[in-house]
């Protein structure tokens, strides 16, 4: 059974069709790459899975349960963690408090709470634990986003452009970190930095103009002419 099963999803925003008739299946344990041009509807799909946006049509199942009408916070508690493309830290709270806010209460979920200190080390923010988030740079905030989502102890992690704003070196660190995390968690990652992100994916889906235009292994995607035309461009191929 797929972990996430989104069927026949459509999303219209007064006139604009952001997503149309998309079927997206995420298998337990995989790292799925979601690629596509700007405005293809990737973030919208994330919002639909995480519950920030209701689809105009279609249904989302998580572990076989229909969650289309479940509010966002409850989905988070069910195990769907996400990051935001545009960072949204709690600026007045310290880095550590940002993570603390996300730890599910013991009563609400079984399993042991995430080791916050280890998480901070993982994203390289251990020295900043007691600084207010407002004092971090954008790059640090990106990493804080990821750590905060992980503090939920999610089963599914939705990463919206985790590499954006990071230097190549830092990208490598981040990917390294993602690779550690993926051992225990299913991940869907949206990324434009294809040449770094694609190789680590198990599978990739490419969207364009609200629809899925290609699906397959990284190798297949790289060679797909439709993807090259719409997204990668000739010289990147």
């Amino acid at each position, binding site marked *: 059974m797929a972990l996430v099963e989104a069927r026949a999803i459509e999303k219209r925003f007064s006139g604009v069709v952001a997503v149309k008739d998309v079927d997206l299946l995420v298998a337990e344990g995989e790292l799925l790459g979601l690629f596509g041009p700007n405005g293809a509807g990737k973030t919208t799909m994330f919002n639909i899975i*995480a519950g920030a946006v209701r689809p105009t049509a279609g249904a989302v199942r998580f572990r076989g349960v229909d969650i289309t009408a479940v509010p966002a916070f*409850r989905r988070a508690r069910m195990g769907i963690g996400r990051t935001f493309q545009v960072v949204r830290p709690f600026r*007045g*709270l310290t880095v550590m408090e940002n993570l603390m*806010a996300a730890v599910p209460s013991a009563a609400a979920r079984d399993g042991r709470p995430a080791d916050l200190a280890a998480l901070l080390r993982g994203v390289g923010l251990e020295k900043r634990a007691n600084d207010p988030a407002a004092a971090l740079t954008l790059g640090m905030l990106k990493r804080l986003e990821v750590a905060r989502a992980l503090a939920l102890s999610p089963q599914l992690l939705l990463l919206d452009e985790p590499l954006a704003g990071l230097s190549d070196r830092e990208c490598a660190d981040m990917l390294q970190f993602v690779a550690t995390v993926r051992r225990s968690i299913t991940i869907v990652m949206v990324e434009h930095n294809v040449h770094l992100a694609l190789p680590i994916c198990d599978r990739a889906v490419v969207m364009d103009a609200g629809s899925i235009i290609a699906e397959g292994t990284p190798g297949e995607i790289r060679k797909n002419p439709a993807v090259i035309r719409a997204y990668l461009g000739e010289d990147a191929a």
Partner: protein
Amino acid sequence: MSRAGSTAALAAVTVALGAVAAALPWLGVSSYVRTLVYYACYYMALGQAWNLISGMTGYVSFAHGALAGIGAYATVIALNAQWPVAAGLAAGAAAAGLASLVIGATSLRLRGAAFTFATLFFQELVLLIVRKLPAAGGPGGLVLQEIYPTSLPYVLMVVLAAVATIAVAALRFSRTGVRVLAIKHDETAAVAIGIDSTRLKVAIFCASAAIAGLVGSIHAIFVGSLFPDVVFAVEISLIALAVPLIGGVGTAMGPVVGALLYVGMREVFQVVAPGLHLTIVGLLILAVVLFMRDGIVGAAARAWATRRRTAVPAEGG
């Protein structure tokens, strides 16, 4: 000092001060001074109630005067129906809590200034309705049939102020407190990490309203007589907000300092500069807002920290 430690220390100090204040009536202190202490505790408790919702979540409420008023009315009605005092107080807290659910249902969905407006109108709406309500005495208001000794509301108010202060301190450093502050900073992100912002906001608002309702209940016993225009004067909501602002928003000590200062200032200027005292109070508030970003408590903490050469980041934000 650890956070739990500082909360405990604060609690101890508050309890001790509360005990001294509560004992004043039996220590031969003049009733005038006791009245001032009473008013300080009244504003303190009301300020803490405000602090709980507005200081913590950033939703600025102008309804706290009205909530206290609802508590006052409920208590007087209950006591006049021969309920015991404890039940009468509970009625006040419950009525205000219920009213907050009504506001919450409409207004907590709004963010920022919209919420503030909605609470501002609530005040006015309740006044209009109470004036039309025969059960609430209409424009003439209500009186408490029985006159209680002043020591009863006095002790109750002192205790309430102390309890509210400790509650705010405990919440501020609890995990729930962190979650509430998360809502203040980014509600969308808070929801995405599993915080049920609606329930949490409603719960905090309801608790805050219940405290405000109790403040009103106790004050009703103190004054023994309710006029709708006096009970629901906008000014009371403004005091609820000015007191923590002067002292320091979102801190447990803020309303304590604010209330003492407010009452003290009022007494002094009433004698020193009768005609101008309102203007002076306004200027002082202005000075605090302009020159002490996080209230007097915040400024003091900074000064202290600077002396010890360590940086203290601004609280809240």
